[in-house]
């Protein structure tokens, strides 16, 4: 697939002008990527990091003063890591020579590297329900990210809903920034939360978050076993309907911040050809994927938070550095094991209830880019992601299925990896960038498809 891209004579010359060479290339400057880059560079490897954000730190460290972030970023600087920001990776060549291509504000940035570490992180899973396309309905982490970007939440009435350890943290953040957080609605039951909390005696701070004690300390009601079944409004959100068992009630609000756990950003690993297992990138003890020399670290291999990402990143970076780094990587294995066990407990505690699959009615839009309604997909039952794309255009819009793919995977029990879009360009890019990359001839129609 990506290995057989057409390379015209002219574009080849053009690309050589912009081609950078390195020994280790890291994609993503969140905790896993930064830790990987530090570890590889400290072993003497020339290291470049490509990141799509204007500032390093990923979603978790963005827009706040975190001593841990400062420590790791200054360590990367001391080690001579080269960071390239606002670089959106959209394609790669993986034959005899490995070149990753990104679009930056200055145009094409192509990097050749024998070793590639993928640390592309995760995004929220969204599930469709009546009214979820209304302005004012955002992700939980989504609203937090928007506020970090300067959106004023002062005095706004917010309902935080969905699932995961992220919800209490988001509620606390919004409260801190002046929001009137009216309720945190967590879909998982108290029973499951308590079982999860009890198994976390070694990590009380996280257990407290999981049990919703932090919002309660702030006077925010936290309801477990509770879900948003509909959002109401004409031009924008005015209220939501909540359900807890047989009880339903309505809450007026300006924002509904709703997300159901996180899903890994698998587009790049799948594009490169890395094997996926159980919805995550499959790696060995060195964090190496099924492709020799390509490593995956952080949320790509399991949703486990900052600590786990930092450990996995270090292991990948040391392993990528070769002989010299491997003993250091090995020394971190026990820590990783404990953190992976924690990630598995998180998964179990916040496992999604089956009744969430029934929230979307036949009329509910499930693909927001193409306005595909649920009835169109149900007509294909049992169906597949491929059938959905061919017959309904679901997943064929600008987001390339990043939003509806994980939702459809959950609702229709389609394998997660089957819903991952892998056609270059992975993101819509400017025509001049495609020309510079020499991708226009073969991908023109595909690009048209995603940009439409």
């Amino acid at each position, binding site marked *: 697939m990506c290995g057989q891209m057409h390379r015209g004579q002219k574009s080849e010359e053009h690309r050589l002008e912009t081609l950078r060479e390195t020994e280790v290339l890291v994609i993503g400057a969140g905790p896993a990527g930064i830790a990987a880059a530090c570890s590889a560079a400290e072993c003497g490897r020339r290291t470049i990091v490509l990141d799509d954000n204007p500032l390093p730190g990923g979603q978790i460290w963005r827009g706040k003063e975190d001593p841990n972030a400062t420590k790791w970023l200054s360590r990367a600087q001391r080690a001579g890591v080269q960071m390239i920001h606002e670089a959106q990776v959209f394609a790669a060549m993986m034959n005899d020579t490995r070149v990753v291509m990104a679009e930056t504000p200055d145009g094409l940035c192509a990097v050749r590297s024998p070793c590639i570490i993928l640390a592309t992180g995760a995004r929220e899973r969204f599930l469709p329900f009546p009214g979820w396309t209304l*302005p004012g309905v*955002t992700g939980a982490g989504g609203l937090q*990210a928007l506020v970090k970007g300067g*959106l004023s939440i002062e005095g706004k009435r917010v309902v935080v809903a969905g699932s995961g350890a992220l919800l209490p943290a988001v509620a606390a953040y919004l409260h801190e920034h002046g929001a009137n957080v009216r309720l945190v609605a967590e879909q998982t039951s108290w029973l499951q939360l308590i079982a999860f909390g009890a198994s976390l005696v070694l990590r009380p701070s996280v257990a407290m978050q999981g049990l919703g004690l932090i919002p309660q300390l702030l006077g925010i009601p936290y309801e477990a076993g509770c879900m948003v079944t509909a959002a109401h409004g004409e031009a*924008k959100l005015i209220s939501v309907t909540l359900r807890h068992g047989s009880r339903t009630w309505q809450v007026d609000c300006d924002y509904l911040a709703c997300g159901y756990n996180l899903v890994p950003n698998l587009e790049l690993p799948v594009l490169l050809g890395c094997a996926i297992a159980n919805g995550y990138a499959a790696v060995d003890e060195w964090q190496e994927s099924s492709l020799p020399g390509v490593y995956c670290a952080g949320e790509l291999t399991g949703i486990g938070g900052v600590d786990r990402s930092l450990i996995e990143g270090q292991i990948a970076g040391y392993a990528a550095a070769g002989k010299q780094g491997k003993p250091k990587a090995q020394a971190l294995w026990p820590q990783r094991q404990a953190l992976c066990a924690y990630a598995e407990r998180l998964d179990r505690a916040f496992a999604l209830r089956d009744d969430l699959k029934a929230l979307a009615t036949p009329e509910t*839009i499930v693909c927001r880019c193409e306005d595909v309604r649920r009835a169109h997909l149900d007509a294909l039952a049992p169906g597949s992601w491929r059938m959905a794309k061919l017959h309904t255009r679901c997943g064929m819009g600008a987001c390339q299925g990043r939003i509806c793919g994980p939702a459809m995977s959950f609702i229709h029990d389609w394998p997660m990896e089957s819903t991952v879009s892998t056609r270059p360009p992975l993101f819509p890019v400017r025509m001049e960038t495609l020309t510079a990359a020499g991708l226009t001839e073969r991908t023109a129609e595909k690009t048209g498809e995603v940009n439409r």
Partner: protein
Amino acid sequence: MPIEPESRPIVLTVNGITVRVAMGATVAAAIAQAGVATWRRSPTGEPRAPLCGIGVCFQCCVSIDGRTNVRSCQVRCRNGMDVRTDA
């Protein structure tokens, strides 16, 4: 807590309305500040606004200085920017 004008040094326009924002603010934040609720219209004409906040959902696309389909949550405001929502 009101934000003092001097802490909002960036001046831009959203649908012709002048907006002042803090350094580092995203275009999405400026659009909300201008009182605009609809960022774009879906293929069947429904109002849409930001969802993911991190550049993956493409629901917040607008025109910036004549360039169409730009994700407003991923672009920082600059002085003199001309932002147009598609609604």
